[in-house]
């Protein structure tokens, strides 16, 4: 697959990729261009690929109609907290399942894996009642605690486990001989080597938290606590009809930073995944 390619093959490959790109790129393009069109133009037929008239007020309206900056901050700090917390919890649990022999380890791992199987729609009502009793409704606690300790972090644990399994045991055995306790082995040896896996866990987790929609809608009721995906749906006119152009402007603002981070960090991202030791 890595042999030198003839110019004709190269042209063909470029062409194929450009064609394939269209359904990936066009919706984003439409989102960005529609965010500066007046509403009536968005549904104009034939569709305008490039806006004919520009309405630059949509972006300022995004901030006027909602406490958008606060909501942005909410999404950001929650995602950061969740990412940090998940990295901690999943690396510890993944390491233990990979390396430590303790009673019922396999059975417990199966139980933990259950977390992967349950859609959030299934557990949302009981979870809501639990947090209501704890007085945590309309706070960010459910949005932080559940992803870190609950179902969403199980995938991260799985990935970390796979990674730690693929590490050569010799390093740790050498450390044992030197008299290091398990915790030290973890922090001094295993964890530093796990940077690529941690990086990919961080990316997955951040994206997941950033795009969460059902949970904020259920748990949060005041606008200044909303997160971004939730805020997007609040740009409605008097009759509940969405103000498309403003909503798309907000959506563009939501997508942009994450896209930029990905562009900058994609090498690490791909490398991180390559090392997740997806060999059994």
């Amino acid at each position: 697959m890595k042999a030198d390619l003839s110019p004709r093959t190269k042209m063909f490959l470029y062409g194929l990729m450009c064609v394939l790109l269209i359904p990936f790129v066009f919706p984003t393009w439409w989102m960005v261009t529609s965010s500066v069109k007046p509403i009536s133009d968005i549904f104009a037929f034939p569709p305008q690929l490039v806006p004919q008239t520009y309405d630059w007020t949509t972006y300022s309206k995004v901030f006027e109609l909602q406490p958008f900056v606060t909501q942005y901050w909410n999404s950001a700090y929650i995602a950061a907290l969740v990412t940090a917390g998940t990295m901690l919890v999943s690396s510890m649990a993944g390491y233990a399942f990979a390396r430590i022999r303790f009673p019922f380890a396999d059975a417990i791992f199966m139980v933990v894996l259950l977390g992967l199987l349950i859609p959030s729609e299934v557990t949302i009502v009981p979870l809501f009642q639990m947090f209501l009793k704890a007085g945590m409704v309309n706070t960010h606690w459910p949005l932080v605690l559940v992803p870190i300790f609950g179902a969403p972090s199980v995938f991260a644990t799985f990935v970390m486990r796979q990674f730690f399994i693929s590490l050569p045991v010799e390093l740790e055995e050498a450390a044992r001989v030197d008299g290091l306790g398990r915790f030290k082995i973890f922090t001094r040896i295993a964890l530093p080597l796990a940077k690529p896996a941690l990086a990919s866990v961080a990316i997955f987790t951040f994206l997941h938290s950033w795009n969460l929609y059902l949970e904020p809608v259920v748990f949060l009721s005041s606008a200044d606590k909303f997160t971004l995906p939730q805020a997007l749906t609040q740009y409605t006119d008097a009759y509940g009809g969405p103000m498309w152009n403003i909503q798309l402007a907000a959506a563009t603002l939501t997508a942009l930073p994450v896209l930029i981070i990905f562009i900058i960090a994609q090498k690490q991202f791909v490398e991180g995944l390559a090392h997740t030791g997806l060999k059994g």
Partner: protein
Amino acid sequence: MNYHRNLKSAVAALAVLAPITWGGVAHAQDAINLRMTIWSANEAHLKLFNEIATGFKAEHPNVTIAYESLPFDTYMTALTTQIAGGNAPDMAWIFETSAYDFVNSGALFPLSDTLKATAGYNAEELSASAAERWTKDGKLFAYPFSTSPFAMFANNDLIKATGAKTPAELITAGQWTWDNAIATAAAVGKSGKGGLIVRDFNYQTWQNLASIWNGWGAAPWSADGKTCTMTEKPMVDALTFVHDAVFKTKAMPGPGESVDFFAGNAAMTITQISRASLLPKEKPFAWDLVPLPKGPAGDYALIGQAGVGVMQSGKNARTAAEFVAYMTNPQNSAKLSQFFPSARKSLLNAEVLKKTNPLLSQQQIDKVVIAGIATGKVIPGHTGFAQIQQVVRSGLDAVWRPDADIPAALKQICGQIGPLLKR
């Protein structure tokens, strides 16, 4: 050693979490905080509501009202999820289609006594027909604070351009019937623009087709709600009429076609009169507002309602009821009627209504708004409406095809909702 370290950090974590958990419990003894769920996020609306809340606070200093805006299309779902989760609001807006569910469930706090006890309230102003579905056993359980008639907007520029007759011309000639209305719409439809659009129907919200089938005297179920009447002649005729308008004469856009009247792309639209505010200010077109056409069964009118109720489960139901009484008293009803036409008889005059609808002419207000509210039937509703709505909707998908067997499709629908209606 490791064990001790872990234990210490665990205790430290709990110490941080605990106050936050229990912190929310303590609050001032006397302060009452009431929450009302609404489906509007409109700034102007909220400003008015907050003014009313401030007015109430003047007489009840310890009461604060908060309004929670839930998105319109998921309003019912969000509200019931709140209730299911034990987080019911103190007061809630209720759609006319869900009224029966709420009123019959015992979830609402009866308002009649509180309303009567409020000085200067004039509860008799609310006509029996307006209050019908919000009342049970003679008690009012939710107040219909908004009554808006459906009417027909017309784009006279588009219509005249095709040489067809405008609604105004047809009305003067005494020929404003559904057949003629569709003929005009078809003429515009042929010219490439949209014909007649039943706004907010979109082949999903079928109950809005009542704006058409009431002209045939049709109804989805009997007056007592127990029997499915969709297979009866009026409904079959009405739906066949609509089907042909969509697929044969192309007078109405088909499923999946989105055309916007207020962008100037269609001949006529049926919608609530408050939508007049969507008429374009730049590039305006010559428009008119007329009552719904006459059907084979005669003249008719259709209204939508919105009610506000108090949840029985709230700790401060009584205070909440007092607020609802305050919010809908004559003075505040007059203020609300800027956006939400009131059902109070005293407010059903051209002067008040001109304020709500500054764009309408005197004649339009008389013929469309006043007559509509006075004589209009409410959109069909039923207990268990959410499920019935969904079942009928997916059953009607078989009707919205070019070669549909309408009687058979309706028979199947009746078969499915029959047991649901009886519940």
